[in-house]
């Protein structure tokens, strides 16, 4: 009996979803109004935030009623998302800007999925580490303190001298090689080239040191800057919680399904810029896909001209790029790894555009007409 009830409910939900676009196209957009459209949209089930009820499976999710304790973790993926660490700056006698940070490596137990604890190694107590942000041409100094029980380094992607590479066995003479527990070292290099980079520990065994959480995004803005936008960082990572060299939890910014429970709020029609970095260990590829939208893609962010207009990018380990997109309609839009396995093991989230509770046929139609092609289409 209950089984019949469920499948009927699913069927109805599906019918409503299928009816909505058709209704917008036929009556809603042309007339601007249409009771049928309004009903169809009102009947849409809330996609985000709602947990799968018992016996239903709208999409993969953790057990209902469970959540990660961000306070205990000491960081919240919703804050990490737009948290850029600009460090402290002062002008040198030469007129050049010196930008400084202090980064502390420390061992810390974090919750990567509700109820699942992981003995992470962190930069500044968070995974991913702080998103360091500088401007092209500045002099950067990163004082690295190793408060962990294990030797670590900070290896930056960028252009610098060998001694500043954070590579054990190479920088040793200048003290820039392996940094033992309790020791520290100041990395110094120029902010070059502009683009989206990353930093991570380079102590062997490398995979283990990275997989434990020692990585972060490193943004170098071009001298002239980039257009104003709602900027966010997404570090695609995963956790091998049972140490079998395969990940059990996948995510952006550490906590699986976090942006399902707390969708990323963005404004309709305004530019959104995503700094996307892949640091996933044990899997050769990762990817990013956004629903119902397309984005301009700037590989490694080293050019101001996008290379592709797409809705899916694939990144190998250490690969990164900048995405720019605008959301033309209110609503919840899923983004996830198009490697479905990763998506269903935690690497899935939602963008929430506007207030979906106010999502009516009229609003949707109005939003459509505001767009250049919508206006033209409407007037034609």
């Amino acid at each position, binding site marked *: 009996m209950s089984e019949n009830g469920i499948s009927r409910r699913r069927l109805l939900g599906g019918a409503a979803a299928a009816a909505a676009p058709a209704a917008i196209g036929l009556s809603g957009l042309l007339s601007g109004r249409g009771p049928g459209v309004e009903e169809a949209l009102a009947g849409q089930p809330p996609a985000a935030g709602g947990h799968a009820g018992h016996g239903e*499976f709208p999409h993969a999710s953790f057990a209902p009623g469970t959540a990660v304790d961000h306070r205990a973790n000491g960081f919240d993926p919703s804050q990490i998302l737009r948290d850029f660490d600009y460090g402290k700056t002062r002008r040198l006698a030469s007129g050049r800007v010196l930008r400084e940070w202090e980064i502390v490596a420390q061992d810390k137990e974090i919750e990567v*999925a*509700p109820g*699942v*604890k992981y003995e992470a190694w962190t930069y500044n107590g968070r995974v991913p580490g702080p998103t360091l942000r500088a401007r092209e041409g500045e002099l950067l100094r990163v004082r690295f303190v190793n408060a962990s029980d294990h030797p670590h380094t900070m290896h930056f992607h960028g252009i610098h001298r060998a001694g500043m590479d954070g590579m054990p066995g190479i920088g040793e003479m200048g003290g820039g090689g392996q940094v033992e527990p309790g020791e520290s070292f100041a990395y110094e290099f120029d902010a070059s080239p502009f683009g989206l980079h990353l930093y991570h520990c380079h102590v062997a065994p490398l995979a283990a040191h990275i997989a434990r959480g020692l990585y972060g995004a490193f943004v170098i803005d071009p001298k002239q800057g980039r257009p104003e936008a709602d900027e966010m960082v997404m570090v695609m990572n995963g956790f091998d919680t049972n140490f079998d060299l395969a990940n059990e939890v996948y995510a952006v910014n550490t906590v699986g399904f976090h942006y399902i429970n707390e969708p990323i709020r963005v404004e309709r029609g305004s530019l959104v810029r995503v700094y996307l970095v892949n640091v996933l260990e044990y899997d050769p590829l990762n990817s990013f896909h956004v629903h119902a939208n397309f984005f301009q893609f700037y590989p490694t962010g080293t050019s101001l001209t996008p290379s592709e207009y797409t809705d899916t990018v694939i990144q190998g380990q250490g690969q990164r790029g900048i995405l720019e997109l605008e959301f033309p309609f209110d609503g919840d839009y899923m983004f996830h790894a198009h490697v479905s396995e990763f998506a269903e*093991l935690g690497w899935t989230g939602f963008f929430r555009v506007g207030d979906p509770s106010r999502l009516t046929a009229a609003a949707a139609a109005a939003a459509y007409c505001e767009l250049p092609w919508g206006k033209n289409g409407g007037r034609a």
Partner: protein
Amino acid sequence: MEAGARAERSVGGGLPAWALGAIPLALIAIAIGSFALLGGPGLGERTGPPVEEVAVERTVLHPGEIELTLRNDGPDPVEIAQVAVNDAYAPFVASDGNRIGRLDSTTLDVSFPWIEGEAYEIFILTSTGGTIDVAIPVAAETPEADLGFYGLMALLGIYVGVIPVSLGMLWLPFLGRLGRRWMSSLIAFTVGLLAFLAIDAGLEGLEIAAEAPAAFGGASLVFAGGLVAYLVLAGIDAHLSQRSRRAGGSAKASGAYLALLVAIGIGLHNLGEGLAIGSSYATGALALGAFLVVGFAIHNTTEGLAIVAPLRGGDDAAPPPRLSRLIGLGLIAGAPAILGAWIGASAFNPSLAALLFGVGVGAIVRVIVQLSPAMRDEGGRLLYPATVAGMLGGIAVLYLTGLLVSV
């Protein structure tokens, strides 16, 4: 002698015997109690992470749901955090809480739209990030344990147990026509058959025990079951022969008596076999094809032959056994398959199954021991061409018919 008695008195004092027994017991209880209360003084904190050992005792599939019964088999409590089916996290509810104490169990009700005929790999993530893996080789809905289901299992038991054993017993008149010199070969045939059956059942028991929680004994349950069955049957045997001697009967086991023993041994074996069939059917691992049922039937027909062989192997002058006795023997040997199928399909538990397989092995070994004297020739030899050929024949027949039922 005197010194020993004096020493006894001096140690025991004037205390009665029961007190001498009870005092050490009380002291042990006090010592253990205080050790536990003080938290094991001197041992310090445990080193290393907690040990998580969880056995999956039962997997039940209903439309849109996978039900997993877990038992904590390790020394530390285990906290279930998340469940993923085929690399997708799925919502679930733990009926007895997410925390499983030592030897406790809980049932996870996982919501997942599984599809019939597909294979599923489930990993259960614990609070420490450890995983418990569960494999469902072929997904099929678990039958509801209603009247019709029990009827089906009974029918299955009759098909593979009662009917073939009874058919095998129809060889009795043929055996009757055989000369006296064939009899030791026939007994040897039965012995060979039973020996192979014992090995087969033992291996199957060990295989099942590998899935059972180690805390309950695991593989040792098979051996324990075997030992218990052997000793109990030996005890009953000794008791009965003592009575028959007192009543003035012959001390030598009669053919009818041996046949009864063989029937009991085979019956206990069929209990295990029914259990395996029932549980395989319930988990969808077994397709009840006509071929398989026919295979089991042929396989088990040889068991009927094993029962009636001693009836002719004993005394030439003995009167032919009554039909009611034959039916009784057939039921003793075959009917436990029905019971086994019921247990296996409705309340399968790997520990219990391992124990029952062990019981079957022990019973068969006991029967072999009792049958063997009937193979001896005038010189008292056990192994001579006729018996060796008979045993090899028994092994060959069971092996060949076993090919039909490799589940």
